[in-house]
């Protein structure tokens, strides 16, 4: 089975423990080996880049250098946090396209006896690995408890689909990978228009009003779609939407109770794990009631009935672009 070098990032041991627990659980079912980057350090999130570029990139590159020493067969680094994923990709990318810059970063690494050759590693987000490496067919085959009746809003956030480096696996605006994964688990995926909108990032700390506005938009949009819960692929998104939902409600005098889960937790449920094995309960807005729907056929909702058969006189709609992961699309056009 494939082995991956894993860069967990700081959140996995604190705010995103549910992500960590559920990832470890499902990786057993999927038969993937996970080995942490030995002695990894924080990627600096968006903060270090704000202060000073060279040290920020050097900080990131130390992880790349350490990981490249661990290459043994597979050179794929798996990241779970989208900020970590972006930072690792970004450092690798910029070192490659700007050789002068690459040399500078390597000079810094040298001080610690390290070096990194840009391009030596393939950096992938867990979602990419699940959809494109492992494949939906295989995931489907492992589903023991289809998530029927569960209306899920897929929320990917910013840094998995953007910026649009050549190596990115998804569309920058309307990616379909998370939708397809959740569909393969049997869940009812709502057409969530804000799937790549911003959760506010560190604005909860810097300009709370700005952040509350962004959180409100997301939660409201999911609620408008009658979603039972939202799933994310990023610790920061999860924390902002979950932990600050209360404060946001207070700010806008609303009363949303939208559970925010990691997508791996739903994969685990579908694979037949118990909620307790997947870090359920660690979320602040409880997912209990949403999950109680599991296994029950949801009543025919209005929106589902609305589509198909245009009434007389209605003009035809253009066909939407075919739904397929971007990587497959790339291959198809070659």
């Amino acid at each position, binding site marked *: 089975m494939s082995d991956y070098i894993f860069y967990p990032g700081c959140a996995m041991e604190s705010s995103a423990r549910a992500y960590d627990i559920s990832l470890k659980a499902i990786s057993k079912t999927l038969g993937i080996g996970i080995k942490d980057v030995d002695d990894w350090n924080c990627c600096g999130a968006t903060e270090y880049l704000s202060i000073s570029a060279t040290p920020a990139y050097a900080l990131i590159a130390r992880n790349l250098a350490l990981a490249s020493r661990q290459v043994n067969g597979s050179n794929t680094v798996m990241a779970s946090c989208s900020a970590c994923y972006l930072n690792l990709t970004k450092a690798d990318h910029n070192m490659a396209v700007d050789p002068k810059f690459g040399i500078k970063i390597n000079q810094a690494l040298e001080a*610690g006896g390290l070096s990194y050759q840009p391009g030596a590693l393939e950096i992938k987000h867990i979602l990419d690995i699940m959809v494109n490496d492992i494949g939906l067919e295989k995931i489907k085959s492992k589903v023991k408890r289809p998530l029927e009746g569960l209306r899920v809003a897929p929320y990917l956030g910013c840094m998995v689909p953007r*910026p649009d480096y050549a190596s990115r696996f998804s569309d920058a605006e309307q990616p379909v990978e998370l939708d397809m994964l959740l569909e393969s688990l049997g869940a009812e995926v709502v057409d969530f228009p804000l799937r790549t909108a911003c959760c506010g990032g560190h604005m909860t*700390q810097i300009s709370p009003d700005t952040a509350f506005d962004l959180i409100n938009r997301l939660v409201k949009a999911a609620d408008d779609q009658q979603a039972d819960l939202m799933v994310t692929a990023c610790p920061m998104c999860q924390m902002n939407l979950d932990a600050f939902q209360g404060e946001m409600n207070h700010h806008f005098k609303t009363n949303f109770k939208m559970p925010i889960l990691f997508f791996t937790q739903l994969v685990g449920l579908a694979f037949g794990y118990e909620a307790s094995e997947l870090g359920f309960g660690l979320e602040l807005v409880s997912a209990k009631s949403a999950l109680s729907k599991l296994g029950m056929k949801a009543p025919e909702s209005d929106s589902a009935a609305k589509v198909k058969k245009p009434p007389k006189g209605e003009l035809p709609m253009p066909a939407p672009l075919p739904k397929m992961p971007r990587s497959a699309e790339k291959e198809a056009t070659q």
Partner: protein
Amino acid sequence: MTELQTVDLPTTIPKHKKSLLSEVAARTAGKSNIEMCIQCGTCGGSCPSAADMDHTPRAIFALLKAGVRDEALRSNTPWMCVSCYYCTVRCPQDIHITDVMYTLKNIAVEEKIYTDSTAPDFSKTFINMVENYGRSFEVGLAGIHNLKHFIGRLPGMTPMVIGMLTKKGMPITPPKRIKGMAQLKKILKRAKELEAV
């Protein structure tokens, strides 16, 4: 809306290498394409936090081109950037706008010219933790930062904080230092020297 006012625009913009625009371009890792801006406003239109910015990114580029250094650097625009990269992927000229915002922040920090210190302080607090432990520490970070800047907000946050600590079980003690702390410090020291060159 602000009233039209006379801005102290440099009358001629020197074409030599040290123009503000090329300085920013040179300090941005990778290819920024910043000189290619056609002032279309896609960035400002896309920005989720544009409402809270004193200038839209587009306006910042105009200021940079015009050589209005202080106003460009003092702006809260880069500090309000949430790094969502919408502007970057939508820019018709392939300008790496988010990365340029980082560069502006770098220069502002270096020259200590910002109007509001909330955001720079948050970043600095964050990197202090990283420089000391090699890992970040969310609880400590939020605690220190909010004590400093949002002391009035703390009561409202209490239920959340309690939840975080009890329900979420987030650690309240700083993380264990990474083994290679000395190595990391050396790397960062060299990197800072290189940045200064």
